[in-house]
């Protein structure tokens, strides 16, 4: 099964302040595929957050899909494992897509 990472040119994640996390999927040539088949529900499940807390922005001009969500753990809290939030990108990268024509 091909993953989001197989289609995207680059996926990066980073804190947007201590309380928010932002994931940028640079889709480039595969933008249409990723826009149509990115599975919001599955992404929310991967982060174990309620689906409605995930904001998604499809940026046609940049061919980028941006995801924003409250950080799964607040930066610097006892349970935080990644102060800068940059490794969460790999969680998104490994996810599969919706079947073709599902959306």
């Amino acid at each position, binding site marked *: 099964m091909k993953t989001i990472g197989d289609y995207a040119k680059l996926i990066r994640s*980073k*804190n*947007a*302040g*201590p*309380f*928010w996390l*932002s994931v*940028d999927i*640079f889709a480039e040539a595969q933008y249409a595929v990723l826009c149509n088949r990115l599975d919001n529900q599955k992404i929310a499940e*991967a*982060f*174990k957050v309620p689906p409605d807390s995930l*904001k998604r*922005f499809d*940026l046609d*001009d*940049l061919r*980028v899909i*941006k995801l*924003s969500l*409250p*950080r*799964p753990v*607040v*930066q*610097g*809290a*006892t*349970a935080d*494992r*990644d*102060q*800068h939030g940059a*490794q*969460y990108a*790999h*969680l998104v990268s*490994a996810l599969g897509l919706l079947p073709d024509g599902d959306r």
Partner: protein
Amino acid sequence: MTTKVLVPSGVLGLGFDREALALGVAEGADIIAIDGGSTDSGPFYLGTAQSKYARATCKAEWRDLMLARAQLDVPLVIGSAGTCGADSMVDWMLALTQELAVELGQSPKIALLYSEQSQTTLQSRWSQISPLAAAPAFEQQDIDTLSHCVALAGVEQIQAALDTGADIIIAGRCTDTAVIAALPISRGEHVAAAWHGGKIAECGALCTSHPVTGCVMLEVDQTGFTIRPLHPDAQCTPHSVSAHMLYENADPVVLYEPGGHLDVSTAQYRALDERSVRVEGSTWIKAERYTVKLEAARIRGYQYSLLALVRDPHYVKHIRQWSAHLQGFLHRLIEDTMGELDYDLQLRLIGVDATLGELEFVESHPVEVGVLGLITASSDDQAQEIAKLCNPHFLHFSLTDDEPSVTFAFPYSPAETSRGAQYEFVFNHVMELIEPMDGFRLKVVS
């Protein structure tokens, strides 16, 4: 009119290309502006009012910028001095500047902008403070638990510092964009373009093809802005520039700042040549209330760490089971020995799931596992006592009772390490001000 802002890098301490800076100085600029901090490296720096970067690094870079400033005879401004922008870090940056002034034979006029908010101020203004989305719960009675609190200044406070006629401005915490946008807005350039250009240039050459070169030149005029790298090998493209709007920002087209917000949804990015990008069409929406964001940190406990290395294939194979048993055993042992305590004990399996924790989805087959124990308690003594109690079990804990005794590897002695006071961020709040300088202090020294 056009206002040229030379931005040497994303933050003082990260380095920039000295030739690129020299090229910027040769062509001229109206101001040199650089950021000095961020919350990005965690609550420790604000909690303790310390710099993340080495003083020697900051001094070496600041020397180049003070020389560039003297050559151009324009203001040099740094925001969020000393990583966290606390008052004592403004003074730290002042001491460094004064040392350099003596060494370089300069006598600059220096303006200092202080952003720290005392507990007394927070108490008296509590009714003007309100939470933003995803803010942690915080009550008025919690104010006395704060180690440091800063308010993020915007362009108005930087402009007040510029209006003193200072050669060098050292600002406490402020937004990354404000130090860049302040002068163009003062000089009557397009307000939204100044903010938008400020956001694009705030990480220096991160909006270019060669991020490590640092230096960019931002030109803001009455209709928009132009951005280009100063290093000859680097390029700005409409893609590299517009993509930077996404960076560290939860919303890709909106940026909240003191006094309003920037909306770039209608902005047009156009290549002027192979290296420069022209941007027009963003809008600035003034807010009805003037608010500044607050940041604060406080101690959440004292921590010790323990590290054991497991190479024994039998234990590596059963490491999750071993770790769960050890954790349960230690909790019972701590309670039996020390009574009921408020503490936190985590075992993180390096090589298995230490980065993503319960979100990890790959079942790995590592050759060895690092077992990182993190013990957080309400005092340093208590954390140390718990760590010492855990120590022999990190070394010898058996998977089952009927196995031969086992000894894992400790990479150093002692295996337990004090990590001192641990801090947490507590505010994601804004404070309403009657006028922008309310709560900020300005001082001029020479």
